[in-house]
């Protein structure tokens, strides 16, 4: 940036000096020297990341509710006659599929960065299938459970937590489909590929949330 700017300011700490020590990926999120408004991609990714951090707190509040209710009702958690959640192989496979899809979508985005459109589209399509598989699996699991939404606290917490998460998975898959369709429009990436980057980040976010939910709902048995 312009070295001619005279620093008559009252900053108690020279934040600029500390910026050097940050890792690259963090540096990209933080602008330097009064902002770089022309970096649309960086600006938009910053905004989207901030949004996701905020959204994760909604999940945190739902998880807090689950924890508070479960910890204070540990003995009576399962209503009589309900066997609760089973850590079946079906569930495990579902989880593995969802979590490994993160390792498919990232190479997809990387391929797009190198403008390898065909590779991008194939990897992207695989991700969509994996996400859809998860959703269908979740639906099947729901229909096979022996408790419903109104069945005690387990019903309330399980369905709201997984349902809210499932809604985000669905949103992710829909965004992916839109991105896939748009990839066929000529000149789509002239102004950058923010949509794909954001969708990828969103997908990672959805997967991380699932790690927490899976542990708290399935791994933690009474």
């Amino acid at each position: 940036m312009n070295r001619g700017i005279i620093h008559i300011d009252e900053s108690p700490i020279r934040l600029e000096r500390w910026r050097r020590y940050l890792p690259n990926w963090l540096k990209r999120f933080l602008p330097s020297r009064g902002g770089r408004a022309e970096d649309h991609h960086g600006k938009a990714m910053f905004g989207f990341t901030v949004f996701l951090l905020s959204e994760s707190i909604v999940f945190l509040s739902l998880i807090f509710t689950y924890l508070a209710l479960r910890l204070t009702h540990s003995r009576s958690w399962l209503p009589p006659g309900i066997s609760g959640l089973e850590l079946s192989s079906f569930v495990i496979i579902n989880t593995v599929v969802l979590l490994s899809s993160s390792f498919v979508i990232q190479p997809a985005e990387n391929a797009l960065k190198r403008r390898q459109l065909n590779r991008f589209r194939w990897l992207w399509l695989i991700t969509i299938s994996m996400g859809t598989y998860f959703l269908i699996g979740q639906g099947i699991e729901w229909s096979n459970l022996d408790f419903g939404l109104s069945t005690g606290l387990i019903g309330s917490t399980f369905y709201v937590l997984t349902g809210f998460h499932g809604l985000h998975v669905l949103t992710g898959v829909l965004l992916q489909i839109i991105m896939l369709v748009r990839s066929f429009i000529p000149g789509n990436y002239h102004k950058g590929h923010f949509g794909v980057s954001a969708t990828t980040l969103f997908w990672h976010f959805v997967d991380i949330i699932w790690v927490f939910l899976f542990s708290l709902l399935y791994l933690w048995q009474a």
Partner: protein
Amino acid sequence: MSRFLEYLLIAGYIAVLLVVSHWIGQQAYSWMPVEATAEAQKVDDLFSFLVSIGAFIMLGLVGMMVYSVLFFQAPKNDYSEGHPSRGDVKLEILWTATPTLLVLWIAFQGFNIYQQLNILGLEQVVHLHIPLQSEPAIAAEVSLPKENNETIDVLVKQWDWSFRYPNNLTSPELHLPVNRPSRLNMHAQEVIHGFYIPEFRLKQDIIPGREIDIVLTPTRTGNYKLKDSQFSGTYFALMEADVYVEPVDKYNQWLAQAANEPMTAKNRAVAEYTQPPKTIFKTSWYTVTPAPSKFPVANQRKVSNDT
């Protein structure tokens, strides 16, 4: 020399403020209702202390503002700079450190008084048997002398209060012996209510499904009002019960007498529901029907106990 005078004036101003604030703090006692428990005295002391400090700060700063308005107004067209100072690090440190010490001091006083409230028996014991909350319950059980306590069941519902005494008398009135600890075992039926007697300086929300105990020792005979302090629906404003603090013999007398003449309360909510007063604006919006005050069935469905 004028520097010295300036400091002298500032010192004088502060001295005057201290005297005035102290005086205002003393007046604060008269703003509170009469003190009917020993705890009330402590709370009023805390309040007076807070008022003194608050008055000092307010008068000090507002005084400076008023002085500025009176003496620092610029001539109409003078937009020149007042003074170039952008700050003063020493002063800023002073006015950060001093309030920090001040609020910590206030917090310490508050903590002290809160502890004393506990020791004197004004505490709530929540029988929920939650692992996280078990310590206070146990501590409370240890410090409370059980033998002296009369346990009165307080049953609150939409929209009235009932009290069940040790001799199985149910009454809409709360009678308490003066200078003796009484234990109140409180239950709410459907929604959250609040137990509040201003003269006692005591307030506690009652959550349905939980038993909440408080122990209190009134120190002044008289008639008081118990109010519901947590909004509980349509006829919330009508939830008042009479409280009678009387000497022990009078209290026992009443217990014996009233057992022979069972009272049904004039339930104000039911009365108003059946005959609504005339108001300018009327809606026909439904409300939860107020149940009449027979002896209310306490909420038998307790929270599953995890003991």
